[in-house]
């Protein structure tokens, strides 16, 4: 009896959510399609032929984006951790380093990414120093690494702070040095905690690689922009947008999955008092 009632209730819930979804989405579609400018929008933004023409080029550009954000993410993971660890040191001798790390975080997070891309992209070559990179792609990557390391360092640091002090006491009591305790006890736990917020920052980074286009490299946004300007249509930009979604949406689902998994598998990983 009870099972049947439960099943019935579940069915009713499914029906209601399906109906409500249909009504809302249908309504939105109706507003869109009946809007006065819809015909224009459709031909400039969603033209199938334009899409077919521009897609291969945009895709090629996007491949550059992918390579760029993978490399930048690897650099950010390392640099962010180094900065976070420097900020958690206590020894007086490290004060200048701590200060530097704090300034690094403030500046990296405080200046708009697009400005950093400009400043690094045009400022570094202007120095005319031997040994500094002059390639626009490398400079853009450096600017992104700088900016995102600031955020990621703070994410790491919040993770390190969230590990209960009794863990450090336990590790020290065993005779480990502070460095060994960080390496084997604190940081592994901190990293596990911060994976979801870390990946969130990477979602942002995967879109922000488009900013490097301002320095000249032919990545997806720039290719699309040129295509769009020469054909007086915006469809290539839509194509680029869809490509970004292809990497950011799966990443968002991965984050959701990891969060759900960490809740499910390990229970709450909090350490008793």
């Amino acid at each position, binding site marked *: 009896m009870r099972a049947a009632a439960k099943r019935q209730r579940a069915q009713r819930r499914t029906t209601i959510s399906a109906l409500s979804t249909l009504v809302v989405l249908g309504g939105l579609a109706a507003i869109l399609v009946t809007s006065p400018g819809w015909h224009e929008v459709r031909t400039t933004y969603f033209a199938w032929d334009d899409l077919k023409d521009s897609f291969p080029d945009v895709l090629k550009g996007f491949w550059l984006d992918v390579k760029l954000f993978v490399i930048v993410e690897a650099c950010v993971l390392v640099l962010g951790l180094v900065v976070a660890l420097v900020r958690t040191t206590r020894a007086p001798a490290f004060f200048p380093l701590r200060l530097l790390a704090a300034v690094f975080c403030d500046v990296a997070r405080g200046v708009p990414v697009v400005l950093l891309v400009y400043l690094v992209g045009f400022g570094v070559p202007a120095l005319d120093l031997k040994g500094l990179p002059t390639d626009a792609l490398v400079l853009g990557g450096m600017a992104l690494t700088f900016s995102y390391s600031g955020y990621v360092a703070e994410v790491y640091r919040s993770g390190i702070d969230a590990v209960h002090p*009794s*863990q450090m*006491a*336990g*590790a*020290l*009591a*065993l*005779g*480990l*040095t502070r460095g*060994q305790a960080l390496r*084997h*006890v604190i940081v*592994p*736990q901190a990293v*596990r905690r911060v994976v979801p917020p870390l990946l969130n920052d990477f979602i942002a980074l995967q879109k922000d690689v488009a900013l490097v286009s301002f320095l000249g490299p032919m990545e997806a946004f720039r290719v699309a922009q040129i295509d769009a300007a020469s054909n007086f249509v915006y469809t290539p930009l839509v194509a680029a947008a869809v490509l970004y979604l292809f990497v950011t949406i799966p990443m968002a689902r991965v984050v959701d999955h990891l969060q759900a998994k960490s809740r499910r598998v*390990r*229970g709450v*990983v909090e*350490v*008793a*008092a």
Partner: protein
Amino acid sequence: MSAPPVLEVRGVTKAYGERQVLRGIDLAVAEHEAIALIGASGSGKSTLLRCIDLLEDIDDGDVLLDGEVITDPSVAPPGVRKRLGMVFQAFNLFPHLSVVDNITLAPVRAHGVPKAEARERARELLARFGLEGRAEDYPDHLSGGQQQRVAIVSALATQPRALHLDEVTSALDPELVGEILHRVADLKASGMTMLIATHEMGFAREVADEVCFLHEGEIVERGSAEVMFAAPEHPETQRFLRRLLDAGRL
């Protein structure tokens, strides 16, 4: 006694801001001896253990380990802590490491014991503490009593000169206390030197050679458990034991 005591505490004081937590503690623990520190919460028992383990700085006095002053600022704390074992009230196991990795962490990283050897020894200790087959489990999947036994094994794995037990039964359900008590009595029988801060009078009675009663950062009375529990001299000791008796814990 010709050899110096394993642990010696001389006139140790410690304050947190305005609050004086230790007011000149003197204490000696000889080899194979077990001393119980009893007293109300906040009397300074745990702080004393943390100070001896160099987890807290002391304000004045000296702590000696095998005759060497370890509270001297020129002594590197890790080298001292390597020679002492500490078991905490809340176990302080590392949740991201399996039981065997918890136990072998210090032997491998701090003492340079080869990993295979450390694991072998960990398994022996686990078996001795009734934890066979638990080596690959994570601490979260063990009961409180099992976690506390793992913590004791962890502290023993480095073969410390002395073992500090800081309220090791306070976080456990009453029916698990006896199990831990039994294990600690075994350790004492095997000759381990111990300093035990506890609310559990069973430790004082069955394990300790000497009981020290702390009141507001001072050892106001010391002696054998039988004598102290039967005929306490200091009024604070009398009051403390009366309260325990009323609570049915003596």
